[in-house]
C-alpha cells in the first residue's frame, strides 16, 4: 500500500485546528464532554429509578413505549458508543479520514457496514412503528410472495399482506424478523460493552500492578482469566439460564461476564508495554494517581486492540444467543431469530419459509460483523498495512 499509494494526500496533510477553549488540559478535572456524559448517565439513572420506583414498571414511560430491563441496558450501551466512538471520531476529522480511507479499500466490508446500519436502524425503530407479531390462527402457514404451497390440503399463494409468509401460529414472518433484529443488536452491543469494560479494567489493572511491583495481583487476575477461558461458556450459560431463569438481560449480561478474557489478555499485553513509556512516568511524577493513569493513558492507548477484539466478539455473542434461543433457553417474551428458526423446525417440509428467512438474516448479520472485524483490523493495525485487506 505504502508503495503504490501514499496514505497522506498532500492536500490533506494539515494539522487539525484545535480550539483550545474547548480543551481542558489540566489534569484531575473532567472535560466538558465528560460532564455531558456524566449528566446523560445521571438522567438515564433518574429515568430508571422513576420507572421502577414510581411507575413500578407498569405502563409506558414515554408515549406508548414501556421501557423494559434489557432496553435500559441498550440505551446505556448506545450512550457509551456515542460518547466514546462517535464523538471522538467527530472531533478528530483527520483520524476519521485516515481510518475511513483505509477501511473503504475493503469493498465487502463497506457493503457489510451499510447492511448492518440498515439492520440497526430497522431493528431500533421498526418495533416502535410496527405492531408486534401476534398469533392469528386464521393465518396459519401462509406462504411468502411468489410461492404457492399446499397447506392443510389447500393450495395457497403468497399475498402482499404477509410478504414472507406466516408461522404455524399465524405470526407474520417479516415482523418476527424485524423484532429479531432488535434482539440481535441488543445482544451483540450490550454484551460487547460489558466485555470491554470488564476486560479492559482487569487487563490494565493486571499490567499496572506488575509495573508497581504488586505482581501478586497480576498473577491472581491472570490465573482467573486462564480458568475462565477454559470453561465452556455455552455449557455454563445453559446451566445458569436453567438455574436462574432465562430473561434476555440475564443472557446478555452473562455473555458479557464470561466473554472478556481475550480482551483482558490483549489489553494487559499492550498496557505492559505502555506502562514503561515515558509519558506514564511523566504523568506519575506530575502527581497523577493510578486511576488517572489507567483511564487517561493506558486504556486509550490500548483502544486499537480493544476495538479489533470487540468486533470479533460481537458476532460470536449474536450466534451464541441465537443458539441458546434455538435450543429453547431464551426469554419467552422476545422474538429472537433463533426462536423463530426453532419454531419452523417442527414443520420444515410444509412451512420451510419460517426457518429459512430469519436464518438468512442471522447468517448475513454475523457474516457482516466478521467482515467488518477483519477490515477494522486491517485499518487499525499498522503492522498489517502491507497487506491488501486480510484475504478479501
Amino acid at each position, binding site marked *: 500500500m505504502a508503495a503504490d499509494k501514499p496514505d497522506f494526500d498532500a492536500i490533506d496533510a494539515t494539522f487539525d485546528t484545535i480550539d483550545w477553549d474547548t480543551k481542558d488540559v489540566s489534569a484531575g478535572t473532567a472535560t466538558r464532554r465528560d460532564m455531558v456524559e456524566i449528566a446523560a448517565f445521571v438522567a438515564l439513572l433518574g429515568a430508571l429509578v422513576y420507572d421502577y420506583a414510581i411507575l413500578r414498571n407498569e405502563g409506558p414511560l414515554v408515549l406508548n413505549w414501556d421501557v423494559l430491563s434489557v432496553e435500559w441496558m441498550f440505551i446505556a450501551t448506545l450512550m457509551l458508543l456515542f460518547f466514546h466512538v462517535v464523538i471522538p471520531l467527530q472531533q478528530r476529522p483527520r483520524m476519521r479520514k485516515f481510518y475511513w480511507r483505509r477501511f473503504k479499500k475493503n469493498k465487502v466490508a463497506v457493503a457489510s457496514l451499510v447492511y448492518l446500519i440498515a439492520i440497526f436502524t430497522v431493528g431500533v425503530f421498526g418495533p416502535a412503528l410496527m405492531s408486534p407479531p401476534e398469533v392469528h390462527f386464521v393465518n396459519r402457514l401462509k406462504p411468502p410472495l411468489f410461492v404457492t404451497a399446499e397447506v392443510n390440503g389447500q393450495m395457497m399463494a403468497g399475498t402482499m399482506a404477509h410478504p414472507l409468509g406466516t408461522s404455524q401460529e399465524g405470526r407474520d414472518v417479516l415482523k418476527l424478523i424485524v423484532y429479531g433484529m432488535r434482539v440481535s443488536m441488543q445482544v451483540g452491543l450490550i454484551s460487547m460493552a460489558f466485555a470491554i469494560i470488564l476486560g479492559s479494567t482487569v487487563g490494565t489493572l493486571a499490567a499496572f500492578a506488575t509495573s508497581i511491583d504488586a505482581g501478586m495481583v497480576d498473577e491472581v487476575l491472570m490465573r482467573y482469566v486462564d480458568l475462565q477461558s477454559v470453561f465452556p461458556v455455552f455449557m455454563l450459560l*445453559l446451566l445458569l439460564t436453567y*438455574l436462574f431463569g432465562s430473561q434476555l438481560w440475564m443472557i446478555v449480561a452473562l455473555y458479557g461476564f464470561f466473554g472478556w478474557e481475550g480482551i483482558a489478555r490483549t489489553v494487559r499485553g499492550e498496557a505492559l508495554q505502555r506502562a514503561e513509556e515515558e509519558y506514564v512516568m511523566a504523568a506519575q511524577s506530575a502527581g497523577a494517581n493510578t486511576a488517572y493513569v489507567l483511564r487517561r493513558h493506558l486504556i486509550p492507548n490500548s483502544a486499537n486492540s480493544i476495538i479489533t477484539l470487540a468486533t470479533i466478539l460481537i458476532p460470536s455473542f449474536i450466534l451464541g444467543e*441465537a*443458539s441458546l434461543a434455538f*435450543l429453547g*433457553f431464551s426469554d419467552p417474551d422476545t422474538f429472537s431469530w433463533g426462536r423463530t428458526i426453532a419454531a419452523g423446525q417442527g414443520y*420444515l417440509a410444509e412451512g*420451510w419459509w419460517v*426457518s429459512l428467512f430469519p436464518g438468512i438474516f442471522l447468517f448475513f448479520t454475523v457474516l457482516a460483523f466478521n467482515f467488518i472485524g477483519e477490515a477494522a483490523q486491517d485499518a487499525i493495525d499498522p503492522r498489517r498495512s502491507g497487506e491488501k485487506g486480510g484475504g*478479501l
Partner: protein
Amino acid sequence: MKWYVVKRVGWTVVASYLTLSAMFVLLVMSPNPGMMQATMSCAAVGEDPDQCRENFKEQHGLDQPVTERYVNYMVNMVTLNWGWSHSRTQYVMAAIGEAWPYSAQYGIPTLILSTLIGYGIGIYSAYKQYSLADYGGAFVSFVGISIPNFWFALVLILLLSVWLNLFPVYYESLIPVEQGWLSMANLEQLVLPTIVLTSSSLAFQMRYTRSQMLEQMNKEFVKVAKAKGASDYQMLIWHVLRMAAVPLATSFVGVLIGVLWTGGIIIEQIFSIPGIGLMTYQAIIQQDTPLVLATVLIPTFIAILGNLFEDLAQIWLDPRIDYGNR
C-alpha cells in the same frame, strides 16, 4: 524444564479443584428445582409443605452442614461417584458410557476431516497468498464461521432430505444396534451431521493455520532454508509448519470444545442422535441436576487436561522456548 512441567501439572490440579468448588457454590446458591417440585406436589395433595421440604432435604442429604456436604461432594467427585440420574434411572457414569459412542461416531470423523482439510487449505493459501485460491479459501472460511450451525443443518435437511430425499431426516438409533455401527444405513444417516459440524470447525482451523503460517513465513530461518536450497515442500513442512504448529496446538482444544461440544448439543438435538449432546439437553430440560453437573464438568476437565498436554507438547515442538525461569 522439569520445574516447568511440575508447575504446569500442579496448576492443572488447582484448576480442577477450583472448578469443582465453583460448581459446588453454584449448586448451593441456586434454587433447587427438585425440592420446589416436591414441595408443590405435597401442597397439591394437602400435606404440610414444610414437612415435605424437610423430608426432601433429609433424603438428599441437604440437611447436613455446608462443610460436610462440601467434603462429601468432593469425595464423590474424585472417586468418580457422580450420582444417580433420575431422568434416565441409571448412574450418571453409566449414562455417559452409553451415550458417548453415538457422539464419537460423528465427532471423530469431524475432527479428522476438519483438521486435515483445514490445515491443508490453510497451508496452501498461505503459500499462494493473494491468489484466487487464497481468496476462495478466505471466503469459505468466513462463511463457515458465520453460518449458524442449526440453521445450516435445517437447510441441508430441507434440501437434501426433504426435497431430494437423499438422506434420512432423523437419526434412527436402532440402526447401529441392529445392523452394526459400520453398516451403510448407519453411515448414511451420519453424513449430514458430519458435514454441518465439519463446516464450522474446518473454517476455524483454516483461518488460524493461514495466519500462523504467514507469520512464520517472514522469519529469518525461512530465508536461510531457502538460501540453502530447500524445496518449497521442505520449507513449508519442515521449517514453517513445525513452528506454526506451536500456536496451532494451542487452538486445537479450544476448537474441540467450542465447536464440537457445543455444536454437538445442537446437532444431536436436530437429528435426535442419542449422544452426549442430546443427553445434556434433556438433562437440563428435565432438571436432572447430577447429570447436568457431569455434562458441564466433563468438557471443562477435557479443556484443562488438553491445555496441559498442549503446553507439554510445546516443549517438544519448540525447543527454543526457555522454561528455566517460569
